[in-house]
């Protein structure tokens, strides 16, 4: 397999990762390596471990890594808190963004952005400077500034929640973004908005992992690699045409693959 950015070291390397929650094994030896500028898609049935993988990379407390490692820019990140991972440039777009009543979206975005800027040794933004920045980013996801004064995700429609995730990604400028079913629950127009937002934000330095069930997102954002996950393992990896095959044959087709490698 050829990489279009051979000269770079991977941003994210997951090596033979085993993980469980409440003693129930979920990941059973996952490996994936993402270099700057690459877009990877992970597909697979519900419950195959896709979301778990993304949460573990972001540091969710409910999962225990029993074997293997996760390296971010060459460093093992297992001992890092979720906030430290985020500050250093790991972004997880939630499948189900969480509602937090009473906390204003604007304040949340500003605190988050400043936490990242602080890590990057950039000057923290005051309310006014931040408002200028956020208004510029709002255009990327075609959001109205009225969103900012509402509580985080509270009363947002499904599409609004997902756009809010992409807005956060735009503000945090991560090195790697893992987008967990960002396309689910979106109508075609909203999907286009979200997809074009992702494309505008990502660049040759960003790595992206798209977790999805559907080809339609991959029509908008063409992946370099497609991985098929089943029962806690990546059972097949291919290029973008693999997704088309999947679309054609369904996941049953993949049941015939044994564990890759």
């Amino acid at each position, binding site marked *: 397999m050829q990489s279009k950015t051979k000269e770079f070291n991977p941003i994210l390397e997951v090596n033979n990762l085993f993980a469980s929650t409440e003693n129930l094994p979920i990941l059973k030896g996952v490996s994936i390596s993402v270099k700057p500028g690459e877009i990877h898609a992970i597909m697979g049935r519900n419950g195959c471990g896709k979301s778990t993988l993304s949460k573990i990379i972001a540091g969710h407390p409910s999962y225990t890594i029993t074997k293997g490692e996760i390296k971010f820019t060459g460093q093992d990140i297992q001992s890092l808190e979720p906030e430290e991972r985020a500050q250093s440039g790991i972004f997880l777009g939630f499948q189900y963004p969480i509602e937090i009543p009473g*906390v204003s979206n604007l304040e949340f975005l500003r605190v988050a952005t400043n*936490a990242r800027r602080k890590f990057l040794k950039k000057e923290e933004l005051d309310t006014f400077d931040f408002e200028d920045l956020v208004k510029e980013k709002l255009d990327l996801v075609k959001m109205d500034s009225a969103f900012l004064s509402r509580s985080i995700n509270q009363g947002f429609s499904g599409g609004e929640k997902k756009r809010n995730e992409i807005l956060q990604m735009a503000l*945090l400028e991560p090195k790697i973004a893992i987008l967990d079913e960002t396309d689910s629950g979106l109508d075609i127009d909203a999907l286009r908005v979200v997809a074009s937002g992702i494309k505008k934000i990502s660049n040759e330095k960003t790595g992206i992992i798209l977790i999805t069930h559907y080809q339609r997102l991959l029509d908008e954002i063409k992946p370099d690699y497609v991985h098929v996950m089943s029962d806690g393992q990546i059972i097949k990896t291919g290029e973008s045409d693999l997704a088309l095959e999947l679309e054609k044959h369904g996941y049953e087709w993949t049941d015939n693959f044994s564990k890759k490698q």
Partner: protein
Amino acid sequence: MVSENLVKNVVTEPYKYGFVTEIETEKISKGINEDTIRLISEKKEEPEFLLNFRLNAFKKWQKMKEPCWADLGYKEIDYQDIIYYSAPKQKEKISSLDEVDPKLLETFDKLGIPLTEQKKLTNVAVDAVFDSVSIATTFRKELAEHGVIFCSISEAVKDHSDLIKKYLGSVVPSNDNYFAALNSAVFSDGSFVYIPKGVKCPMDLSSYFRINSGDSGQFERTLIIAEESSSVSYLEGCTAPMFDTNTLHAAVVELIALDDASIKYSTVQNWYAGNEEGVGGIFNFVTKRGKCLGKRSKISWSQVETGSAITWKYPSCILLGEESVGEFYSVALTNNLQQADTGTKMIHIGPKTKSTIVSKGISAGNSVNSYRGLVKMGSKAIGSRNYSQCDSMLIGDQAAANTFPYIQSQQPNSEIEHEASTCRISEDQLFYLQSRGIEFEEAVSMMVSGFCRDVFNQLPMEFAAEADKLLALKLEGSVG
């Protein structure tokens, strides 16, 4: 889960105000009887009428029983094991701040309430109460120019006895309840405020209550009178040293608002809460009540209750005057083994009266936090309205929250609206904020202040910021 480990690593901020001031004090011997009361009255050189008020209250108190209906559990209080008067030794008569013991000034300095001319807060007049006596009151001259009286209640008894005679006990009668009766018998000091007709008090007034000695109770008494078309904003703060014994604090606050007058009374209560095992802390049994006597008068209570081992208080409004307005905004936070049973009573008597109740209870650790409130529409309260909102937030899985709303209506043409909710800070919410780079502690504090926003918006500016910080501090290490 992960948060538990994290929490163990978080150093819990010790109670900042837990120090003791070493100072010579004059204390009377433990216990209470008629002689104790005569002695207190004598020490304060009180007129006959007040001694009789006290003795009368004492007689009633002896016949009363300590209330047990609140959702509180504590070891029986031995009322004969309490010292009812304790005062720092000072010169006989103090004519200016320069004569106040520097140790006392230093104490208030340390508490963030500087009293001296050079350092005093510029926009707030302060009455500083140390154990049983008022130490100093700032800005008295400036206030006097506007006709505003702001002094200790002991001074008011002597200098404004007509007002005291007329109003003391007029809102909270001496036999109102067990703790109010006890207070009426032995109250030592507190603040007195009088705002004359048509005057908007030019600055916020504030009392700071400091309990210093471990074995004496504090029984302060506050009386605020707002004449026609006047207004005042009054703030109250309280702290105490850390002792492993419980100290009784039984205060009475009475507010009177005449036609078109408005009183805003804000409290940040941060008495020592006891340690993590529930040893020590203040027993806070307080009766606070305001009477909207005049037409279109308004009394607004806002409180942030974070301290005390036990809190038992129900700041209330009696809405007598036509179109008078009562408000109660409360944040009560309990952690570890703290217990709080707090709320309000809105008694609608006059027609077209309005009341609003917004209560936010936050329980963490093994604490119990109850809202208890009464809304009553009397038979003449035609066209009166109440809106109540009681929200509880649970942190961790060992804390408890209760809501006890009592509604009584004798007037069909009145409206009572009650909303209640309970929520829990979930691991998913925390993770969401953390996954955006926000530190764990900050994430908790963002959610808690978000929850309290409606109440914080009602606090005077400098108090709101303080309250926000205080909550964050109190919650450190409490999320598991």
